[in-house]
C-alpha cells in the first residue's frame, strides 16, 4: 500500500509471526525462518559484545608500552578469544543467519526456506558450538591466536585447544547447513516470474557466500579434526618434531579461512546494494556486473589463500602466483564500489541511517581493500606481515566494512522484522560516533604497522605510545557507537513508531507484505512481473 501521499497512520497487523504462537516451545521448536533469524540475532549479539569485551581489554593493555596490565600469556588469550568469538561466532553467521534467514525467502516470494527443520538444526548446532567455545573460555581460554598455527597449538600450549577446535568445527557445520539451505531455496523456490535476472542483489550476494560456505568450510573441519587428533594422540601430521609439516597446516587452514572473509563480506555487500538503490531512489547501475562480481569473488577467493603464507616458507614461484591472483581478486570488489557510486550519481540521495552506514561502508571498505593490495605485493608484505598494518587492514574491511553493513542492514530491515521504526535522531548520532570512533581506532594502526610495531605483543617500544593511545581512545568512542543501537533498538520494540508495510518506499517483495510479516510471509503469493529496483520509473508513488 502506498504511503507517500496518504495521511493515515499505519497500524500493526493483528496477527504476525511474532504473536502467532506464544511460549518457549513455540520458539525453541519453531520452523519459521523469521523466528530462527531472531534466535540467531540474540545469540550473535551476545558474542559480539563478548568479543568486544576482549577488544576493550586489549586496547586497555596497549595504552602503555609496558606489558603491565596482563601477563603475556593472558594477553595471548585475550586476542585469541577476541578473534575466535568475533569471526566464528559473530561475523560468519551475522548477515546470512540473521538478515539472510529473515529476508531471503521473502525476497524470493517463498513461504520459507527449502529445509526449515535443517534451518532450526543449524541454530542448535551453533548453540552447541557456542557452548564448547564458552567451555574453553571458562577453563582458561586458548592462547594460540585464532589461527591455531602448529606446532604451537598441537604440541606446546597447555590451554584447551581441543575443546575450542571442536567448538569451531561444529560451528562450521552450522554455517554449512545455512549455506545449503540458501542454495537450494534460490534454485527451487522462487516465486512465479522471479527469474535469476530479477533476483535482488542481496540474494545474489548471499547465494555467492553460500557457495563458499559449502565448498570451503569442510576443509577447516577436517583440519581442526587433525589438529585435535594430533594434540590428543601425539601423532605427527603438523608437528615437525614428529615428522609433520607446519606449512601444510597453514595451507589447509587458509584454504578455508581466506574464502571465509568473503563469506563475511559478500552478504554485507548485498545489504549495501539494497540500501544504496533505495536511498538514491534510482535503479542500481550495472545490475549484471554486481551480480556476477559476487560469484566472481566467491570463485576467485578460493585461489588466493597462500597470500597469508608469503613469509612462511612457501616457494617463491608459488608466492608469485598467489600474489598475482590476489591482485585479481580485488577487481570484482572494485566493480561493485564503482557501480554503487554510479548508482548514487544523479540519484535523489537522502541520508537516513541505513544510507549513512552504506556510505561509511563504501569509503571504509575501499580503504581496507586497497591496503589489502599493499599486502598482496610480495616485497611489501615481507615488511608489513604480522605488523599492525595487517590488523588495521582487516579491521577496515571487517568492521568498517562488514559490521557497518550489518548494522546498516539491521536498521534498514528493522521495521520489517519488528513492525517498529527505530528513533532516527539517536540512530544518526550513533552512526556518526561509530564512524569517528572506528577511524580513530584503526587508522593510527596503519601507521604503527608501517613503522614496524608487530601484532600480538602486549608491550611495545616507547615511540609507538602516542599512536596507541589515540587508537585506544578511538576504541572507547567506538564502544559507545556500538552500544547505542543496542539501547535504542530495544527501546523501539515497545515505544518505536509503527512502521507500516513500506516505510522506505522501497521496491522488493519483502516490502509488499505486512510489517511484521505473517508466519507464511504472504497473504497472497506474489507474482513478479517487473525488473528489480524499478525506482523512479513511474511518477507518483513509484512503488506499486
Amino acid at each position, binding site marked *: 500500500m502506498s504511503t507517500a501521499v496518504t495521511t493515515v497512520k499505519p497500524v500493526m497487523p493483528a496477527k504476525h509471526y511474532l504473536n502467532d504462537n506464544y511460549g518457549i516451545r513455540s520458539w525453541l521448536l519453531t520452523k519459521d525462518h523469521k523466528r530462527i533469524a531472531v534466535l540467531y540475532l540474540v545469540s550473535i549479539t551476545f558474542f559480539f559484545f563478548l568479543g568486544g569485551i576482549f577488544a576493550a581489554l586489549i586496547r586497555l593493555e596497549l595504552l602503555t608500552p609496558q606489558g603491565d596490565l596482563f601477563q603475556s600469556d593472558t594477553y595471548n588469550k585475550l586476542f585469541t578469544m577476541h578473534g575466535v568469538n568475533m569471526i566464528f561466532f559473530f561475523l560468519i553467521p551475522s548477515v546470512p543467519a540473521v538478515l539472510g534467514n529473515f529476508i531471503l525467502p521473502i525476497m524470493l516470494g*517463498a*513461504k*520459507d*526456506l*527449502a*529445509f*526449515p527443520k*535443517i534451518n532450526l538444526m543449524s541454530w542448535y548446532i551453533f548453540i552447541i558450538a557456542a557452548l564448547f567455545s564458552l567451555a574453553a573460555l571458562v577453563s582458561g581460554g586458548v592462547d594460540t591466536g585464532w589461527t591455531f598455527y602448529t606446532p604451537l597449538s598441537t604440541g606446546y600450549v597447555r590451554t584447551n585447544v581441543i575443546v575450542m577446535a571442536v567448538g569451531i568445527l561444529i560451528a562450521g557445520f552450522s554455517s*554449512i547447513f545455512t549455506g*545449503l*539451505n540458501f*542454495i*537450494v531455496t534460490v*534454485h*527451487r*523456490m522462487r*516465486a*512465479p516470474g522471479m527469474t535469476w535476472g530479477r533476483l535482488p542483489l542481496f540474494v545474489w550476494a548471499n547465494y555467492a557466500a553460500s557457495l563458499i560456505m*559449502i*565448498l*570451503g*568450510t*569442510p*576443509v577447516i*573441519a*577436517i*583440519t581442526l*579434526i*587433525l589438529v585435535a*587428533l594430533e594434540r*590428543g*594422540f*601425539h*601423532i*605427527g*601430521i603438523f608437528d615437525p618434531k*614428529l*615428522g*609433520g*609439516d607446519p606449512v*601444510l597446516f597453514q595451507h*589447509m587452514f587458509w*584454504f578455508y579461512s581466506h574464502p571465509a572473509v568473503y563469506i563475511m563480506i559478500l552478504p554485507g555487500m548485498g545489504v549495501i546494494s539494497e540500501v544504496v538503490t533505495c536511498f538514491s531512489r534510482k535503479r542500481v547501475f550495472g545490475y549484471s556486473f554486481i551480480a556476477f562480481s559476487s560469484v566472481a569473488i566467491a570463485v576467485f577467493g578460493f585461489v588466493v589463500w597462500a597470500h597469508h603464507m608469503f613469509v612462511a616458507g612457501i616457494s617463491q614461484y608459488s608466492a608469485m602466483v598467489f600474489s598475482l591472483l590476489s591482485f585479481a581478486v580485488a577487481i570484482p570488489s572494485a566493480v561493485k564500489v564503482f557501480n554503487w557510486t554510479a548508482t548514487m550519481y544523479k540519484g535523489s540521495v537522502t541520508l537516513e541511517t541505513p544510507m549513512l552506514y552504506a556510505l561509511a561502508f563504501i569509503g571504509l571498505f575501499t580503504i581496507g581493500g586497497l591496503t589489502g593490495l599493499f599486502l598482496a605485493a610480495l616485497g611489501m608484505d615481507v615488511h608489513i606481515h604480522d605488523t599492525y598494518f595487517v590488523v588495521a587492514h582487516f579491521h577496515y574491511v571487517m568492521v568498517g566494512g562488514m559490521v557497518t553493513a550489518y548494522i546498516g542492514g539491521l536498521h534498514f530491515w528493522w521495521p520489517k522484522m519488528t513492525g517498529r521504526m527505530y528513533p532516527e535522531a539517536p540512530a544518526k548520532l550513533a552512526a556518526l560516533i561509530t564512524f569517528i570512533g572506528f577511524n580513530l581506532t584503526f587508522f593510527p594502526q596503519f601507521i604503527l604497522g608501517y613503522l614496524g610495531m608487530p601484532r600480538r605483543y602486549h608491550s611495545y617500544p616507547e615511540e609507538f605510545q602516542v599512536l596507541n593511545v589515540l587508537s585506544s581512545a578511538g576504541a572507547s568512542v567506538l564502544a559507545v557507537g556500538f552500544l547505542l543501537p543496542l539501547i535504542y533498538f530495544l527501546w523501539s520494540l515497545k515505544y518505536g513508531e509503527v512502521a507500516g508495510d513500506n516505510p522506505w518506499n522501497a521496491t522488493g*517483495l519483502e516490502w*509488499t507484505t505486512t510489517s511484521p510479516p505473517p508466519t*507464511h510471509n504472504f497473504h*497472497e*503469493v*506474489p*507474482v*513478479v*512481473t*517487473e525488473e528489480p529496483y*524499478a525506482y523512479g520509473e513511474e511518477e507518483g508513488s513509484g512503488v*506499486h
Partner: protein
Amino acid sequence: MVKRRDLVSTNQTTTTEHHPALAHHFDNMEQQQGASTFGMWVFMLTEIMMFGGLFAAYLIYRLKYYDAFKAGSTSISVSWGFANTLVLIASSLTMALAVWAAQRGDRKKQVTFLILTMILGAVFLGVKAKEYKDKWEECHIPGHVIGKGFNTWGGCDVNNPKLGNIADEMRDPKEHGDPSIPEVSAIQTAKQTEIFFSFYFAMTGLHAFHMVIGLGLLTWLTLRARSGEFGPAYYTPVELGGLYWHFVDIVWIYLFPLLYLISRHQHHG
C-alpha cells in the same frame, strides 16, 4: 511492480490432492522431491571437500615420504582390503536395487534389499575391525596414547617377527638418510611410517564413521519401508539414502588403491 494473485501458477497441480508427505512450504511433490535431491547433492559437495582435505594432505606426504609410505602400505593386508572393496560394491548394488524396488512400491523387495545392504555394510565394518586389531597387535597404532605405541617408540620389540616390513626398513637404514647415523635415519623412517598410519586410521576411521551413520540411516529407512510408506509417488528418502551410501562407496573406491596398493609389485607374495 508486484501483482497479487490467489493461486500460484507454477505447475499443473493446482488441485487440492495433498500427499501426506508434502511439506507446507512446497507447492507440490515434484518441487519437494527436486529440492530434497538437490539439497542432498549439495551436502555431498561438502563431504567431497571434507574427505578431499584429508586426501590432499595424504598426497603431499606420500610424495615427501614415499619409501615410508610404501613400507606402511605393504604391511596392511591387501587381501582383506580387496575383499572389503568387493563387499562394499555389492552393498552399493543392493542399495540401488532397494531404490529400484521402492520406486515400484514393492514393499517386500525394498525391505529385503535394504537389509541386505545393512548386512554387507556390517560385514565391511567387521573386516575393518579385524584389520584394526591386527594393527594393534603389530604395534602400528600411531602416537603414544593408544595401545603399545608405534614400533620402538612405545616399546614394541623391533625383533618381533610380526612387524615384517617396517622392521626391515629399520634394520636396513642405508637407503634412508644419512648412513653414518643409522639410529637417526631409522628413527626418521619410523616417524614417517607413523605418519602413514596416522592417515590410514584417519581416512579409514572417518570412512567407517560415515558407514556407521549410514547403517543408522538404513535402519530408519527399513522401518519406514516396512510400514509401506514408499511407493512411486514418494520414495525420496530411499533415493537420498542411496545417494549417501553410494558416496561412501566411492570414497572407499579411492581409499583402496591409495592406501593398500602403494608399490605392491616389489613385495609380491
